[in-house]
């Protein structure tokens, strides 16, 4: 009989390590889930120089001072590592093939993958190759009474939340939205096992060839990470009135977002677009001015903790979704709010 322990795998998506902590967040949640099903937590890393990737002079364990060591320090019991020059750049087909083969050999119970752009496509391909199900962009994970991975995911643009399971197929797979879970603090004393998996000799060339890659460093302040976002829509009335949002955002230590019609009308840059084709935001407070609430927009702001919406029309979707719905002219209220803030902040 197979005496191997059950395992929860987390794909090591280390690109943008310092900006995107989703792998660490998943390791943390995987630890909590592993207790419930008596499993070990494994990270899976494909790359080149991944074990020396971060020059961490303070590491107590100099052998694993790169991303591999980071994953152990953040909760992995074991790291499966394929480290080879051919894996220096992310490569979809190659990574999917490596994951497929490793999963078929090791038979993990679950595979969790960060819902980054790469992760979402990668997970789709791996799930297809393994003939299993996949829930996309989860905002919660748990173990249900049957011991199955409960995958909690928004549907219909976040207007509904669905609970999904993969009852018959293994592994149970999910991609998880960055920021859903809290990472465990770095513990340099934690130890783990590194299992080196050689590159298969018969590895075919990726049919998609990387011609050029350019790292676009994110700008200083990002609307995706802002604690306060002030979003404006067509209901503000004009470019000049929209511009007042910048003054408001400044007072609120926030960032300005915009809807698609506003971007098309050139009241705001495309960078400010909050929507399915633009940025997804998750502020503590979202101020929404003159926005009716088209699904492409609301889908991108469902993670806002507290929504204050302003609209002349009390029946607008955004007003119904709001914690506080203010029935007023968006532009006039913006002016009043600026004045009140200037009075209150001393």
């Amino acid at each position: 009989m197979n005496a191997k322990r059950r395992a929860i795998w987390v794909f090591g998506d280390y690109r943008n390590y310092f900006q995107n902590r989703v792998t660490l967040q998943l390791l943390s949640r995987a630890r909590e889930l592993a207790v419930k099903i008596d499993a070990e937590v494994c990270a899976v890393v494909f790359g080149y120089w991944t074990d020396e990737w971060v020059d961490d002079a303070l590491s107590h364990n100099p052998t694993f001072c790169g991303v591999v060591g980071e994953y152990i320090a953040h909760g992995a019991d074991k790291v499966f590592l394929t480290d080879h020059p051919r894996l220096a750049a992310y490569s979809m087909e190659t990574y999917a093939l490596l994951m497929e083969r490793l999963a078929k050999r090791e038979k993990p119970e679950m595979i969790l993958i960060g819902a980054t752009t790469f992760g979402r496509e990668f997970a789709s391909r791996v799930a297809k190759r393994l003939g299993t199900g996949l829930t996309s962009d989860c905002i919660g994970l748990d173990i249900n009474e049957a011991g199955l991975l409960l995958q909690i995911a928004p549907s219909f643009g976040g207007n509904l939340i669905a609970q999904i399971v993969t009852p018959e197929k293994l592994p149970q797979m999910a991609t998880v939205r960055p920021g859903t879970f809290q990472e465990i603090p770095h513990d340099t004393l934690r130890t783990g096992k590194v299992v080196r998996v050689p590159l298969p000799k018969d590895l075919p060339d990726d049919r998609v060839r990387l011609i050029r890659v350019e790292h676009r460093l994110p700008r200083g302040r990002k609307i995706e990470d802002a604690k306060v976002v002030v979003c404006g829509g067509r209901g503000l009335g004009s470019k000049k009135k929209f511009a007042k949002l910048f003054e408001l955002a400044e007072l609120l230590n926030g960032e300005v977002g915009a809807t698609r019609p506003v971007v098309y009308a050139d009241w705001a840059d495309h960078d400010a677009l909050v929507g399915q084709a633009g940025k997804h935001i998750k502020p503590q407070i979202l101020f929404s001015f003159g926005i009716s609430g088209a699904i492409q927009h609301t889908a991108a702001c469902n993670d806002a903790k507290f929504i204050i919406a302003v609209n002349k029309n009390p029946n607008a979707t955004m007003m119904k979704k709001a914690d506080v719905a203010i029935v007023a002219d968006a532009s006039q209220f913006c002016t009043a709010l600026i004045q009140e803030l200037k009075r209150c902040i001393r």
Partner: protein
Amino acid sequence: MLNIVVCLKQVPMVSELPWDPATGTLRRELAEGMMNPACRAALEAALRIREIQGGEITALTMGPKMAEEVLREAIALGADRGVLLNDRGMAGADTSATSFTLARAIEHACPGFDLILCGFASSDSDTAQVGPQLAEELDIPGVGYVDEISVSGRTVRVQRLSDNFLETLEMDLPGLITVTSGAYVPRHVPMGGLQAAFDRADIATLDAASLGLDPDRIGARGSATRILNVASPLAGKKNIVLTGTPKRIAEQLFERFDDKIGGAIGKDLKLDKKKP
């Protein structure tokens, strides 16, 4: 001359779906349908590629009879023909069953295809999984989340932004590309186009039997995932409504939520408590 297939999905138009809180089910039949925005961009990409390369565009969709509307719209915009996959057995498919069904339909209806274009994700389920899984199913190269496409002979060059990395990639045809919704601004339906699409549209309807599909591999039966329940995230929200003059509302807002707002903006709000 390229044989191009564009996969389209009809999605509900309303942002707030009619939802029956008692049974926890969606009343999709009450919602108006529209072409998914990213699919619209994929169709636009196909039309522009055909303008340069020449060829034929087949619009393909899976759904209820009503989904034929998006095929007619695609034909009105310039697609040559439409294929509707309509079968009760196909209902309730997850992305894996969907990609299986689409793959078999493409092999059947569009043999010798060169390029498959899909929207990167749908606005209703937003999984972004069908495109990549369709490439897997057909065992052809594929690239997701593409912003720019150029075809030269049998080679396609694409550009995409993937997690802060601007990538230029190349593959040989046949291949599959999923297109972001901002990538190609869709054209408007030309004058008379819609009428023509309804008068003489070339639309074929295929069911599971005509494709010879195993009923255990399609629809809900062919799906590995099960939805246990759905709930509205709005349940439990208070939705406090404030009315009055802008000045008075602003004052009320700070009176009631000064801690919340002050905490988020990282500033102390000094309220004038002496006010009457």
